[in-house]
């Protein structure tokens, strides 16, 4: 039961840090930055699930992040324009009328539902199409990357309805609360922190469920799972769609917190950038992706201030060093260290690793997420 205790203890510490310490210690500006990092961490949690647990290297999370962000931005623009009003950029670049497919997003409820449903549904459809045909591994990664490239080009090309490279920005209010008021910015931070915690909790439950076991099994030996009578495509689609949903929520909150969403936030480079934190934190762990994403974003903001060119080297070196030499991320550093000390005879077993490349199994001992097998729900049922 110590694992469970550690888990809830960890949650309590995280909650105190996020809800008490950070708001007290940080200035409004820094707190808003942290809120932005938390949004990026939401994407990371989803990637951790799809990639770390499911072995699907998604290089296109920017698409879902962007969908969430743009859907939210459309509503905010329409809300600022008032009932029947036309968003400012459409007057500038378009013909001064609101296209029909924008209209439903005047309604806040429709918007929230769309943010939750559209990206998730799209991911499910895409996942079904791709995974049913057993496109996987590198093929899937490259396809998802192409998707991000196509999405960014499409957004840029449709300037009249998407704002083009400018993206959408200049929001004045968020569901009736004015964004200029620092107190409301704080409220947004609390929402982001709460949502992130909830996502981590949800992921933890998913990981520990029978489904979570199945997902890892599909990652490691897809064919064996198939022979056992399961449908691996279905299992993968759920993880992929969940990751898309998390990314979309992250994007939807990113928009009002940062005040802008643009194609630069959703393209190929942005999509790969989401992976950095996950890889560094520890892709198959529960908290690794979150901590990794926050740490990397923070480092980027502060390091690039002083040394812009150094930051690029540093980022490249991090990628190389962590992925090549510490494939399970910094979260497992302690474990690797312990193993080294335990004896030179024990080495990481590389030969039995799966064909689609992710490390065979999450590091069991170091993580609260991996409770002892007897604690798994459904195991005795």
């Amino acid at each position, binding site marked *: 039961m110590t694992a469970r205790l550690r888990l809830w203890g960890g949650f309590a510490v995280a909650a105190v840090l996020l809800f008490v310490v950070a708001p007290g210690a940080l200035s409004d500006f820094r707190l808003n930055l942290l809120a932005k990092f938390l949004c990026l961490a939401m994407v990371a949690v989803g990637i951790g699930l799809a990639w770390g647990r499911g072995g699907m290297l998604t290089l296109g999370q920017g698409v879902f992040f962007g969908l969430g962000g743009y859907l939210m931005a459309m509503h905010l623009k329409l809300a600022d324009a008032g009932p029947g009003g036309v968003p400012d950029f459409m007057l*500038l670049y378009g013909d001064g009328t609101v296209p029909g497919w924008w209209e439903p997003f005047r309604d806040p409820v429709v918007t929230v539902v769309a943010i939750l449903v559209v990206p998730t549904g799209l991911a499910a459809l895409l996942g079904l199409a791709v995974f049913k045909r057993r496109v996987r591994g590198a093929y899937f990664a490259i396809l998802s990357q192409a998707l991000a490239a196509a999405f960014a080009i499409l957004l840029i090309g449709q300037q009249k309805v998407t704002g083009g490279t400018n993206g959408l920005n200049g929001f004045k209010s968020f569901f009736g609360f004015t964004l200029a008021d620092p*107190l409301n910015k704080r409220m947004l931070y609390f929402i982001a922190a709460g949502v992130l915690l909830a996502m981590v909790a949800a992921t933890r439950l998913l990981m520990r469920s029978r489904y979570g076991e199945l997902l890892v099994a599909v990652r490691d030996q897809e064919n064996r799972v198939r022979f056992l009578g*399961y449908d691996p495509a279905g299992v993968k689609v759920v993880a992929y769609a969940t990751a898309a949903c998390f990314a979309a929520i992250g994007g939807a909150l990113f928009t009002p917190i940062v005040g802008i969403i643009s194609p630069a936030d959703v393209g190929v480079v942005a999509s790969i950038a989401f992976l950095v934190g996950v890889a560094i934190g520890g892709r198959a762990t529960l908290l690794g992706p979150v901590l990794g994403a926050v740490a990397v974003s923070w480092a980027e903001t502060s390091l690039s201030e002083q040394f812009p060119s150094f930051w690029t080297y540093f980022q490249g070196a991090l990628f190389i060093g962590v992925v090549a030499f510490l494939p399970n991320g910094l979260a497992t550093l302690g474990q690797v260290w312990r193993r080294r000390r335990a004896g030179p005879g024990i080495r990481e077993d590389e030969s039995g690793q799966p064909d689609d490349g992710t490390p065979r199994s999450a590091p069991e001992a170091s993580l609260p997420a991996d409770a002892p097998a007897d604690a798994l729900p459904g195991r005795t049922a």
Partner: protein
Amino acid sequence: MGPQRKAPPLTRPLLRALVVPAAATLALTLAACGARTADEPEADGTGSATGASASCVDTSGDSIKIGFLNSLSGTMAISEQTVRDSLDLAADEINAAGGVLGKQLDVVAEDGASEPTVFAEKAEKLISSDCVAAVFGGWTSSSRKAMLPVFEAKNSLLFYPVQYEGLEASKNIFYTGATTNQQIIPAMDYLKEQGKTKVFLVGSDYVFPRTANKEIVAYAKANGIDIVGEEYAPLGYTDFSTIVTKLKGSGADAVFNTLNGDSNVAFFKEYKNVGLAADTLPVVSVSIAEEEVGGIGVDNVEGQLTAWNYYQTVDSPANEKFVAAFKAKYGDDRVTSDPMEAAYTSLYLWKGMVEKAKSFDVAAIQDAAGGVSFEAPEGTVTVNGENHHIAKTALIGKIGPDGLIHTEWSSKEPIEPDPFLEGYDWAAGLS
């Protein structure tokens, strides 16, 4: 295909796993909101709430902080580094000459990383955390659009040094580059004067080319010029064979080019390779300055036209001094270009405004700005107090074999800025 039977035990725990966090999300979100909505009314004037909207600029010491915000990394670093160089030069000169209102300039430098989101974030940092009196920088339209709401919300000042697509006038931004009626319309006037009647438009697929071309189309309609083609290439696109094929088959007698960056190189190489030449089918470019000519290759663009308000070859004492100082600081092989000159000028214009207002206060500067003028390298420029742009002389130049651009035609006098093209009948439907 393996057997596709669904395993029954999968569903129940899965449902549980999804319902519980959903409930948790809701509860947590409500808790987070609830905690804030109680002290939501703005009357609850805590220190932090009032502190952010009021200026925190410190004018008590013998130095004053200003911010430079340019991309030093990413795709725009190529261009924006040159602007940063000339801003640094201007700051050095001003400090050597005794500063502004007796205070030395203390520059806080930031990297915009070629991303609008980063520009917005860094602008906020410069204003709220560093408490700078004014910010100088930005290049792409998207970076300016991203920063605009920040400067308006925080009521601070941005000096933006690049020619742009117009249709904007914020009281918190001073635009020291050209607006469309100081660059694009004079270029069209020039083509009309040369007897060109069939113009082909080629541009990168983003805000500036699309908006500029909208204006060109309206101009052409009113002036008896046919637009025989309008093509856009995605940013960074490097295969122009199809577009050049269309261009060649269009029967155009001039090309108006709003391509950005790398695409120019591929376009001009293709243009030359299919056998087109500047003397029969000239290309007017609005994004190629002295800096870019070297990268495209002088032999690929020699004889082509550009539209700007400044060239390194401009003959004036102020320019002689500027070019000499720039080369002394950064090396003899460096060139100066329009955005660099506009950035250099912007710092001096701010100095002029502060000295006229005798204050670093934003409102005082806004009041004093109208009519402030500066003997800039491009000639005398004057700030328009209404729309915060500056009056500039339009210059059409021809790229010479030396890689420099030489003035071919110039407007008779500085053109008053008209960002919304209110003074042009044909532009009535544009904004």
